[in-house]
C-alpha cells in the first residue's frame, strides 16, 4: 500500500555546517518574526538559541523543520537545499524536532509512541503490513530508546497519563528514536520541577555525542552549562554568537535582557 519512500539520501557530513540560512525571513501580518537571518550552524555540539520573548526563536525552528514556509530566503541542511521540502521529508533526512508544548500521541501507550517513531525509519518497506509484534528489530530499538529515556517501566501507560516531566521526556524519546544527526529541541525543560530538569539535562548530555543539538531554552543556568555555543536572537535577527563565557561578557546581550541596570 505504501509506495517506496522517495529516495532522499541523507547528505554526508563534511561541509562543516549542519544548517545554513541565507536571508531567511518570515513575516506574519504586521510583524516580522524572523528578519533576514543568514547564519551557518556548525556541525556537532549543543547549539543553543536564546533571546527575549518574541525574538523569533521558535519561528526560526519552525522554518528549519518545515512547519512554516519562509516568506523569503533559503536554507540548507549540510549541502542539500531544503527550502521547499515538506516537513515529513525533512524528518526523513534526519532533522528531528520536539515542540514547545507537549506534542505526543496522547491516547497511545508510551511503548506505541516510541515504536511509531522507530518504525518511521521503515516507512515504505514491503513488510509494512506484517503484525507489529513480529518486527524484531523495531522492538529492540524501541526498548533501547525506552531505557534511554528512563520510561521502560511506564511503557504500558497511556502517554496522556504520564506526569508532565515524563511526557517531555517521551517527547525527547520520539525525537531520538530514529537516531537522527540533528535534534531541534524547543524548550525541553519548560514547566519541569528541579529534579525533572536535572534528569532531562543529563539525558540531553547523554544523547549529544555524535549529533548536533539545536536548543531553544530559557533556563539560563542550564544553557550556560551545556551549550557549545550560544546564538542570541533579538527582534527577529541575530544579536550575538559566542561561547557561554563570551555571551555572559557581551554587553549588548545583557542590555537586551536586563536593560542598563546590570
Amino acid at each position, binding site marked *: 500500500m505504501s509506495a517506496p519512500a522517495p529516495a532522499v539520501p541523507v547528505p554526508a557530513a563534511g561541509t562543516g555546517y549542519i544548517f545554513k540560512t541565507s536571508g531567511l525571513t518570515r513575516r506574519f501580518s504586521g510583524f516580522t518574526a524572523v528578519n533576514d537571518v543568514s547564519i551557518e550552524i556548525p556541525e556537532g555540539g549543543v547549539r543553543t538559541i536564546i533571546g527575549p520573548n518574541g525574538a523569533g526563536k521558535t519561528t526560526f525552528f519552525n522554518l528549519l523543520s518545515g512547519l512554516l514556509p519562509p516568506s523569503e530566503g533559503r536554507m540548507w541542511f549540510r549541502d542539500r537545499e531544503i527550502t521547499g521540502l515538506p516537513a515529513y521529508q525533512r524528518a526523513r533526512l534526519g532533522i528531528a524536532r520536539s515542540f514547545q508544548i507537549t506534542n505526543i500521541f*496522547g*491516547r497511545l501507550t508510551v511503548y506505541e509512541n516510541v515504536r511509531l517513531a522507530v518504525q518511521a525509519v521503515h*516507512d515504505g518497506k514491503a513488510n509494512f503490513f506484517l503484525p507489529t509484534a513480529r518486527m524484531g528489530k523495531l522492538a529492540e530499538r524501541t526498548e533501547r530508546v525506552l531505557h534511554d529515556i528512563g520510561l521502560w517501566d511506564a511503557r504500558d501507560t497511556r502517554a496522556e497519563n504520564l506526569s508532565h516531566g515524563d511526557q517531555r521526556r517521551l517527547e525527547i524519546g*520520539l525525537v531520538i528514536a530514529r537516531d537522527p544527526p540533528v535534534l531541534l529541541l524547543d524548550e525541553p525543560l519548560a514547566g519541569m520541577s528541579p529534579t525533572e530538569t536535572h534528569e532531562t539535562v543529563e539525558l540531553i548530555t547523554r544523547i549529544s555525542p555524535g549529533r548536533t543539538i539545536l536548543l531553544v531554552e530559557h533556563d539560563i543556568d542550564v544553557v550556560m552549562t551545556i551549550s557549545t555555543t550560544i546564538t542570541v536572537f533579538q527582534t527577529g535577527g541575530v544579536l550575538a554568537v559566542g561561547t557561554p563565557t563570551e555571551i555572559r561578557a557581551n554587553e549588548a546581550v545583557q542590555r537586551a535582557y536586563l536593560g542598563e541596570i546590570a
Partner: protein
Amino acid sequence: MTPPNRARRLLLHPLLWTALLFLALPWTAGSDPFHGQWSGFVGIATTMVIFALFASGFNLLFGHVGELSFGHAMFFTLGAYATALYANGFNVTVLGAVLAHGKGDNMLVALALSLLLALLWAWLLARIIIPRSSGIYFSMITLAFAQIVFFTTYRWSDLTGGEDGLQNVARPTLFGADVLRDSDHFYWFAALCVFVALCVLYWILASPFGSVLHAIRENKQRARFLGYDVDKYRVNAFVLSAVFPAIAGWLWTYFQQAINPDAGSVEYSGNVVMMSLLGGMQTFMGPLLGASVYYELQNEVSQATKYWEAWIGVVFVVFVLAGPRGIMGIIDDVRTNGVAAILRNPFKREEPVEPTFDEALKPLDESPAVSETGVR
C-alpha cells in the same frame, strides 16, 4: 509477555468475541434454530452481520484515522449495483456504444467487480478530497460526493432501473449447489464472509500501517514530524475503508436479491455513523455491536410505532451527549471503575480528547499550527 497474560489476551481477543457474536446472533430474539424455530429473525441477523462489515469499514476511517465520512454508503451502493448488474446482465448505450452483458452466476467475479468499482471511485475521490480537506469540511464533502453516486443510480434508469432498482437477483451457487437460497444457510455464508473480511481488517489495524493511522488520529502534526507522509496514509486509509462497504454491498444484493437507490442514500451513510458511535468508535468491536444493537432496536421499536426513527435519533443524541465512547466505552468504564462508581456518577465519563490543534475549520491541512499572531 508472560503466559497468563497471553491467555488473557487470547480470551479478550476481539476476533474471538466477533465469532461468538456471530454464532449467537441467530439464537437471540426467540429463535431456536436447533429445533427449526426460525422466527424470521435470521433475516435481521443477516442484516446485522452485513452492516457490521459496512460499519467497520466506515469506522476504519472515523474511529482509527479520525476522519468522519458522511458518504460511505456510496461504496456500499457501488458494490451492490456492480453485483446486481453482473448477476442480472445489462444492455445499455454509453456514448453511442452498446454495452451488453448476459447474466453471470460466479459470485467471485461479482465480488471482483464490486471491489474494482468501489476502489476506482474511492481512489479518485481520495486524490481530490484528502489533500484539500479534513474535519467537518471533509464530512460535508464526502456527503456531497455520495449524492453524485446516489443520483446516478437514481437517474440512470436504462442501466440501474431507476427508482425501482434491479429486482430478482439470483442467489449464487456454492460449488454448483443451490444451497444459499435458504435464509439460514445464507446467514452462515454471510457471517463467514464477514468474519473473514473482519480478520483482514483486524490484521490491517494491528499492523504497523494501522498504528500509523492511530498516530495520525491522535496528532497529525507529530506524525508528520516523525517522517510520515500523512496524506499518503490518509489516501490509503480512505481507499481501504471503501473495500469493506463494497463487500458488504456485494452480500447485500445477494441477500436482498434486489437493490434500489436507497442503498446509497444519506440515511444509509448516516446509519453506519450511528452504529459506530453507538458501539464505540475507537474499538474494533464497536461497529459490530453497534450494528447489532441498531437493528435490534429498530426491530423492537418499529413494532410499537411507525416513527421508530425518532427513538433511534433520541438514543443516538443521548449517546453523543453522555456516552461518546459508546457501548464499548461503558463496558470499559465498568471494567476499570466498577458498576458502583458508574452508578454513583453516571455522567462523569472520559471525554473524547480535543484536537491538539484547531484543525476544525481548516480546509487545507497545511495550515500552520502556530496562529499568525501567536508567535513566540
